């Protein structure tokens, strides 16, 4: 080995030894304030989401339930006795009609709610986005459902939906129509929960889309009118493309939120009658907090499946947007 080669190797070694701390220090020097600013979020998310997620994943691979987890009864501490069971929970759930039934209804519920909410929100935003008398009044009135906590509104709807005494049925009776079992018949209950969720969701869509409409330059419409485009053409060729950025975000968010919409279903029907309106989330909640014995492992496995489904939706959705030329 020649001297130069040895020296070169030694230098390389030295450089390799020095590089990592140097690089870390340099990165710290450049980015420390950015990292400090995001640290709280990362920390909180790490502890509150990261740990439970890992733990939930683990629980879903066991047979943990109320009777075999670690617990204290009086003075006695009883250690956990649940066991690792591998993918048994998953095979059981996927082989069971309950899951597929709930999944079908959850998808239907999500698609129906998001479609209706978006269409109504878009229509109203278009109506509001012009000069008309009473615009502020209409806007405030239409946003009102958002200002009221969802659980309060849901209880109000229960009051209205009440089969024997609710206002809706009394009104129908006034028109000579038989009482409708709003929340007590599987089909009606499904329609009722969708209606309430749409009622709750429209204000958010309306506000977001109204903002989107206002950012479309008016000159585009003027030019289109000059070229003889009719109202429908203007809507299709200017409004819809102009709203693309906003709508893609709100549709994705609203899909995720609706898919996991716990309070509306839980407080309106508790998933009933039977399990007609039970979506995946409320069913998983029922497994671990309502049914006895509490099935922690099963509930966790349901949760993991829900998460996988949503990730899939998000990835597919983002990819389809990117294909259309959205950058993100």
């Amino acid at each position, binding site marked *: 080995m020649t001297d130069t080669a040895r020296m070169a190797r030694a230098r390389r070694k030295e450089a390799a030894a020095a590089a990592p701390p140097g690089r870390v220090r340099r990165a710290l020097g450049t980015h420390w*304030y*950015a*990292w400090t*600013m*995001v640290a*709280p*979020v*990362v920390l*909180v*998310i790490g502890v*509150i*989401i990261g740990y*439970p*997620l890992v733990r939930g994943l683990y629980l879903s691979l066991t047979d943990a339930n109320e009777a075999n987890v670690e617990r204290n009864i009086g003075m006695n501490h009883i250690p956990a006795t649940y066991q690792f069971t591998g993918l048994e929970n998953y095979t059981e759930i996927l082989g069971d009609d309950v899951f597929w039934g709930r999944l079908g209804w959850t998808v239907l519920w999500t698609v129906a709610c998001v479609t209706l909410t978006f269409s*109504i929100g878009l229509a109203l935003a278009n*109506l509001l986005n012009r*000069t*008309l008398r*009473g615009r502020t*009044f*209409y806007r405030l009135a239409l*946003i*009102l*459902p*958002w*200002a*009221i*906590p*969802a*659980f*309060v509104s849901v*209880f*109000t709807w229960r*009051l209205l939906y009440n089969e*024997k*005494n609710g206002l809706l049925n009394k009104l129908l009776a006034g028109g000579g129509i038989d009482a409708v079992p709003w929340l007590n018949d599987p089909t009606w209950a499904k329609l009722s929960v969708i209606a309430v969720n749409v009622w709750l969701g429209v204000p958010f869509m309306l*506000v*977001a889309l*109204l903002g*989107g409409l206002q*950012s479309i330059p008016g000159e585009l*419409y*003027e030019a289109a*009118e000059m070229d003889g485009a009719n109202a429908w053409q203007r809507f299709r060729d200017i409004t819809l493309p102009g709203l693309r*950025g906003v709508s893609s*975000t709100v549709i994705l968010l609203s899909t*995720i*939120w609706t898919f996991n919409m716990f*309070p509306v279903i*839980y*407080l309106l029907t508790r998933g009933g009658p039977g399990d007609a309106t039970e979506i995946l*989330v409320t069913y998983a909640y029922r497994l*671990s907090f309502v049914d006895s014995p509490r099935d922690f492992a099963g*509930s*966790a496995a349901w*949760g993991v499946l*829900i*998460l996988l489904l*949503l*990730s899939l939706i998000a990835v597919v959705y983002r990819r389809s947007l990117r294909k259309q030329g959205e950058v993100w």
Partner: protein
Amino acid sequence: MAKSSRNRRSPLASAGLHATLLIAAVVAVFPPLWLLITSFKPKNDAFSTELVTHFTFANYRHVIADTQFLTWFGNSLVVVGITTVLGVFVAATTGYAVSRFRFPGMRPLMWLLLITQMFPVAVLIVPLYNLMASLGLLNQPAGLVVTYLTIAVPFCAWMMKGFFDTIPVEIDEAGRVDGLNPFGTFWRLVLPLARPGLAVTGFYTFVTAWAEVAYASAFMTGEENLTLAGGLQTFVNQYVNDWGSMTAAAVIIAVPAGLVFAFAQRHLVAGLTSGTTKG
């Protein structure tokens, strides 16, 4: 465009426009209004379809004097207050960092913020319940506060990023030239300009925490620890059917939310737009 189309709108179209909006407004306003009306009726008239015939404050008196409502209200106020203040601050710093700096870990962080929003309550709630139990945070406001932060902050950080993107970078540069460090620039120059964004973020955090049900019902047990979402469920459930108290309590609950909303709504349209389009 708006002006010309108004000039050309026919009376018929105008009537149709107003009719549609009016119907939508009635549908939106009616349930809360009916709640308000019902709350002033004697308990046994809760389901009568007439307007108030015997006006009474009895429901309110009962709720405030004979139930734990005020305790629940206080619990909620503490939890939501702390959540909002912390949430806005943390969302602002995060939003600023991802808006202004290109740093390693930024893309994963953006993904994290998006993915966190789709975590189902169901997968987290049991482990989180156990975690809270082992930390002694069950029935403690602190437990709910950190949980709510993880729900509200990701979306708020996205919104704040959108806001900061609309504030010219020259302002930061001016701050740097004047010798401010990045925190000083953020705190003294940029944050004041982002006040509408803070209003929207605060509103969103407040409403989210004020209205949360699942974690509140699972983590807070024992009547004196409940927050409002849990407390309200004690009025109407499979055992009792006290719609009178329920309506009065619901009205009181809606008031703070309404106030916060009235304060923030001016900024809402602008806020959500910049947040969602630039996000």
